[in-house]
């Protein structure tokens, strides 16, 4: 029974972290209708930066967010202008983006191998004292609780941005109907660039904690994060950032419980759910219609 409770608590913390990991991907898809297959690589880069800051300056990952988030926001802005507007003029932006960002992820993985080598790196657990906390009658690492708390804070921040600011209103307008938003004077490039910047910054923020709660950081782990993020946002609803949270909850609990009862098969579960959801309800659990035929 206590195993069951432990899995419940752990999965809850996982769900918070994976919401953060996938949130940016969904924001980009919702606003620009493009698929950022390099999402996981940005996460990995953020992770490397946070680990480097921890090793060389003793930064706690929460503190390093002050460096990671603005830096990756700027990188996102810089990448937006040469890539995305040109992409959106092509015949089929959705498919073209798929391939283009695969190229980006390829190049980033290559760069990561060049700079950081193929070895695994991990954030030091001991940066958090006490090492363990008691949460709902089960003992969990403090690092996980902090990760989950930061994730929830970031999600709330995105919610506030989308629903309480002028630019957020324009972003939502773009998500609902691109042409009408443009006709009403929304500056598509500016709104999209900011959303893209946020997306990259969110990925990097998740990366700052990823080696604490999920996989250790290595150049090749980016693909895994991209795939998991995809599974999550499709289960939730593609193009609806806040539905990401529901997708992450479904993913985390399915993963958490199979990991306990059928450990050999746990990694396959997200893909099975993904395929099942895509076939039964391609618009996601919270989405409106998406399938054409």
């Amino acid at each position, binding site marked *: 029974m206590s195993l069951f409770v432990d899995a419940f608590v752990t999965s809850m913390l996982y769900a918070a972290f994976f919401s953060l990991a996938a949130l940016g991907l969904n924001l980009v*898809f919702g606003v620009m209708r493009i*698929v950022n297959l390099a999402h996981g690589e940005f996460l990995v880069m953020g992770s490397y930066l946070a680990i480097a800051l921890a090793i060389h300056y003793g930064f706690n990952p929460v503190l390093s967010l002050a460096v990671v988030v603005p830096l990756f926001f700027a990188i996102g802005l810089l990448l937006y202008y040469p*890539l995305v507007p*040109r*992409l959106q003029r*092509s*015949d*089929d932006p*959705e*498919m*073209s983006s*798929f*391939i*283009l960002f*695969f*190229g*980006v*992820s*390829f*190049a*980033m*993985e*290559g*760069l990561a*191998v*060049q700079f950081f080598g193929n070895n695994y790196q991990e954030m030091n657990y001991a940066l958090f004292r006490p090492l363990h906390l008691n949460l709902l009658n089960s003992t969990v690492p403090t690092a996980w609780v902090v990760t989950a708390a930061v994730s929830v804070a970031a999600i709330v921040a995105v919610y506030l941005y989308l629903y309480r600011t002028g630019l957020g209103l324009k972003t939502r307008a773009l998500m609902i109907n691109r042409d009408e938003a443009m006709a009403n004077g929304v500056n598509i490039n500016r709104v999209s660039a900011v959303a893209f910047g946020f997306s990259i910054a969110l990925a990097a923020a998740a990366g700052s904690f990823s080696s604490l709660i999920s996989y250790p950081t290595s150049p090749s782990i980016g*693909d895994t994060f991209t*795939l998991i993020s*995809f*599974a999550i946002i*499709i289960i939730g609803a*593609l193009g609806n950032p806040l539905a990401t949270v529901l997708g992450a909850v479904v993913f985390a609990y399915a993963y958490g419980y199979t990991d306990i009862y059928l450990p*050999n*098969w746990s*990694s*396959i579960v997200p*893909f*099975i759910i*993904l*395929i099942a959801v*895509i*076939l039964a309800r*391609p618009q996601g659990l919270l989405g409106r219609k*998406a*399938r*054409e*035929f």
Partner: protein
Amino acid sequence: MNFRKVFLADRRMLARDAGIMVLPLALLFLLGPMLFANQGLFMELAIYVMLADALNIVYGFTGYLPFGFGVFFAVGAYGTAILVAFHGWPVALAILAGALFSALLSLLFTPLLRLSGAYFAIASLAAFEAVYLIFSNSSLTSVTGGPYGISFTSVYAPNLDYAVAAVLAVVSALTVLAVSGSSFGIALKAIREDRFAVELAGVNSLKYRTYAWLISSFLSGVAGGLYGWYLGFFYPEAVFSLTDFSVLVIVFVLFGGRGTVFGPLIGVAVLFAVYEFLTLYFSNLVLIIFGVLLVLLILFIPNGIMEQVTRLGRLLFRPEEGE
């Protein structure tokens, strides 16, 4: 489909194209191993020609990009290996059966064809991952060899394997030519251009896409079986490599020109040479260079170099036709 008039294109042109296609390929496969003394390289080339043709049938002609397309290749390789290693089948039969497994798997995945664009691409990626995790699962070691790989070196015959692969690579190129010129191929291309119009014209687009999907997966399965046989022993990662047998093939096809008959062949020939050269001399930069190449390709020549070549040829030789 009107079976009495399957080939809509001019037969003389088809024969000419077949000649243009078969001759250089045959010469390459015959003389290549002699000139470079590296049969393995040309084996891979033959495999990539088959895979590029298989991808062209589904991506080039119907516009559907199965990102995890390499799953059929891997299942073909595994089907062959399992049947030979654990059940003692003769190789030829095992390769055929492996390819049929791939086709069966593709039938299992046909519901995915109802999806559009990105959904389809992501779903096929997820399917790839799921199948990989099943084949490499340690719980199934007695059935698939699990993470420890599978060996069937007793039937190892690289020369024969190479010859078969070379012939089948040429056959697959001719298959694409035949499909392209047939009413079937024209239906597929029409689906790519405008599915709604095709449906309104009374063509069952789902049926045609399913056929293309079956042909493509069967061909990939054959390529996988031949490749597995050539390896003799492999780990799951060797055949379930998303980079090697999905992404590279997509890049080859895109570079040459998807939906064209010659494009994928040119893409394979040029980029495979570049890839091998880079791997040999700048192995640590391959990922970066190929990544950047892919980005530039999609941004600047999204329809592939075939289109540019045709335009150039028209300007040079038949200026009166113009643009």
